[in-house]
């Protein structure tokens, strides 16, 4: 039956906010100390919080391993593609293509924002899959 445990309730109420904070770190990576890698690790931390807090029968369909592996691979390819588009159009690897503005808003970094999002997707999906597989195996 449905039992009340402190850890269970707190983890399921808190984990979506941790994942959202990871997305915030990813998308505001050019204004804050965060960035793609840090935000990805925080996203994975939200999933780790769920893994540690919830009872095992809740975790069965939580992480779709095939989908997350696909996201990881595709984001690696997207990163390479963004770099190569820079070579074709601008002349250098990872050439800045979008227009930039003065610092302070989310759209002002242009191309960096897209790169941050791609790296965040890759790191988040990768660490999530690693920790999920390790946890489910034990």
């Amino acid at each position, binding site marked *: 039956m449905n039992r009340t445990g402190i850890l269970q309730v707190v983890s399921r109420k808190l984990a979506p906010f941790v994942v959202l904070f990871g997305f915030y770190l990813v998308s505001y990576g050019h204004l804050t*100390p*965060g*960035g793609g*890698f*840090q935000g990805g*690790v*925080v996203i*994975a*931390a939200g999933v*780790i919080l769920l893994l540690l807090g919830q009872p095992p029968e809740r975790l069965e369909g939580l992480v779709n391993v095939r989908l997350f592996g696909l996201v990881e691979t595709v984001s690696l390819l997207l990163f390479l593609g963004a770099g190569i588009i820079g070579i074709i159009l601008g002349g250098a690897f990872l050439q800045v293509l979008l227009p930039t503005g003065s610092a302070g808003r989310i759209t002002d970094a242009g191309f960096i924002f897209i790169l941050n999002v791609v790296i965040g997707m890759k790191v988040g999906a990768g*660490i999530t899959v690693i*920790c999920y597989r*390790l*946890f489910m195996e*034990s």
Partner: protein
Amino acid sequence: MMVIILLVLHIALGIFALQVRDMLVAVIALAAVSLMSALLFFFLDAPDVALTEAAVGAGVTSFLFVWFVRKTERRSGE
């Protein structure tokens, strides 16, 4: 001055983590090293490195290390 204090703390905690017998205690000491190291980077005006150190060193690494210690044999002191 603050940096020297924190570096001395790093060395002391590192020696403690190396010489202790119980693996779980060593993992906890490494988490403490990680937390102090994040504070050191913060004082050296590198908040992004501090954020990475706090995230990877204290969170994900201790998750993985604890899992490994549980999988292998724990030489317990208790």
